[in-house]
């Protein structure tokens, strides 16, 4: 560290400021998760129940709205709040599965590339470059136009989009761990490579991976909502916030809330995961630790 004493003090103070409310930042995520899990128990109307006579009722606070539908209804008279709660479930499931599905191969390849080096590293790094050189949304469109629309294809597409950043970060971490005395010692002691990677290297990069995964959840949610918006994501009658956005597109002029509500929900969720990721990064980054 070459920073001046003054800036060092400043930095540690701002680090403390940012690291403090990790718990608070997680509140929206936790609330959304609780809603997603307990959704069937909540006193909400049926998310799929149509009532054309009640179509496009505005939210309760707007003129003409009522508390029967606190967030209004969509074109088919379905309660937006109920759909929001129902959609939280699939949105979170997709976000989690998509992140896990991209993290596992991403971490494996990153550890291999960083630890083995040489030829293996060259091939994997080239693959990462190539993957990052593909415009992900176009690639997803290409795959889904052929593979059809199902949850499995969607998760696979999200994994394909998301593995490369994990690989890149993990590779860099392992590269610096490889020459550390404890690793060299274990190697001399004859510990096998898989065991070394899984038992000794992996725990050392867990913090970084956690931060990456938190930030990646946001990317996955964005990708899912974009795909659903383009009509390539989740299929009706299943509801995700992305499909709600897509439905809102047609009623933008006469019922802004149909699109505004799920978009605001996605933004809130993303804001929360991004802040959480930043806070975790501050906490795990050795450069920000206080001495």
């Amino acid at each position, binding site marked *: 560290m070459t920073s001046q004493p003054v800036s060092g003090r400043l930095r540690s103070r701002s680090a403390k400021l940012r690291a403090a409310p990790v718990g608070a930042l997680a509140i929206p995520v936790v609330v959304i998760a609780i809603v997603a899990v307990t959704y069937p128990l909540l006193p909400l109307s049926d998310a799929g129940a149509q009532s054309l006579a009640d179509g496009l009722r505005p939210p309760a606070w707007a003129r003409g709205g009522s508390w029967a539908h606190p967030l209004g209804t969509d074109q088919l008279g379905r309660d937006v709040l109920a759909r929001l709660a129902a959609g939280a479930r699939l949105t979170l499931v997709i976000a989690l599965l998509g992140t896990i599905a991209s993290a596992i191969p991403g971490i494996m390849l990153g550890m291999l590339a960083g630890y083995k080096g040489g030829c293996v590293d060259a091939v994997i790094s080239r693959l990462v470059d190539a993957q*990052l*050189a593909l*415009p992900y949304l*176009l690639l997803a*469109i290409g795959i889904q136009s*052929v593979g059809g629309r199902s949850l499995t294809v969607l998760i696979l597409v999200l994994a394909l989009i998301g593995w490369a950043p994990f690989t890149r970060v993990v590779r860099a971490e392992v590269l610096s761990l490889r020459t550390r005395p404890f690793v060299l010692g274990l190697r001399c002691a004859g510990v096998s490579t898989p065991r070394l990677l899984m038992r000794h290297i992996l725990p050392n990069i867990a913090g970084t991976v956690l931060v990456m995964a938190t930030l990646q959840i946001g990317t996955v949610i964005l990708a899912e909502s974009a795909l659903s918006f*383009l009509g390539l994501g989740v299929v009706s009658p299943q509801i995700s916030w992305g499909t709600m956005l897509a439905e809102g597109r047609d009623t933008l002029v006469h019922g802004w809330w149909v699109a505004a509500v799920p978009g605001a929900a*996605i933004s809130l969720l993303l804001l929360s995961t991004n802040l959480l990721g930043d806070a975790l990064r501050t906490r795990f980054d050795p450069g920000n630790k206080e001495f």
Partner: protein
Amino acid sequence: MIGIRLAAILGRAAATLLLAVTIAFLLTRISGDPARAMLGDNATADQLSTMHAQLGLDRPLVAQYLSFIGDLARGDLGTSLRYGEANLDLIVDRSTYSVQLASVAIVIAVLLGVPLGVIAALREGGLVDRVASAAALLGQSIPLFWLGQMLVLLFAVNWGLLPAGQATGVSSLVLPAITLAMLPLAHIARLTRSGMSEVMRSAFVMAARARGLPSWRIVLVHALRSAALPVVTVVGLQLGVLISSAVAVELVFAWPGLGSLATEAVERRDFPLVQAVVVAGAAALVLINLTVDILYTVIDPRVRDGRS
């Protein structure tokens, strides 16, 4: 020295492009049967085999791949099934709109993002700094196409100030360009801020101060140039992200660019066109990264003189 570097950069770009194109080819073949996707589930075996023959899907995968690469090398991206035109012509046609939109968006992002980052770095913890970092965070968290819809709602539907969509002159560029600029703007501001605050503490800036150079000169000429390097990289990377986010944003604004071409192609089940757009997108991205690499070599005195 610089010649060798450039040759290496070119070679790497070519390898990346080949790999990216191969991935695009494989994924669109492995993930399902394009003929079935185009004809729907009710297609008869006869129809399927005719379509297979028409698309060359009845041949072994390796043969398909080789002729695909061969065609690509000759600049042939196949023919669209629905338009009956060469895919390349369609893509070139539409990409002028995409380039227009993307470049205006990037210019907005740089013109706003760099000054924001510089001011935030010079007054760390100040009002501009806090507002900028909050805005940067918001920019990264809002789905762009949704932001676009909300802008349409306010500026076009409610206030009637700007057109809601389609390419009808300069005013129709404003909303989609601002929407697209949000994400790169956030990244550029963040990066400029962290780069500048680091550079301002570095030895050479202190040396410049010691020699009595005026502050504006230190900031604008010396520090900014040094902090500009990562910004150049991020502009390149952001152009890549832009290609992706433009797909949905173009749909919102009915902007006739590559993104809408892709969505139209999917809706009309025009598989050759879908594949061509993916390949074209990858090629554009590789080209952008190549430009960034070369620019990097030219801007950075350490890299340029082989002192890295």
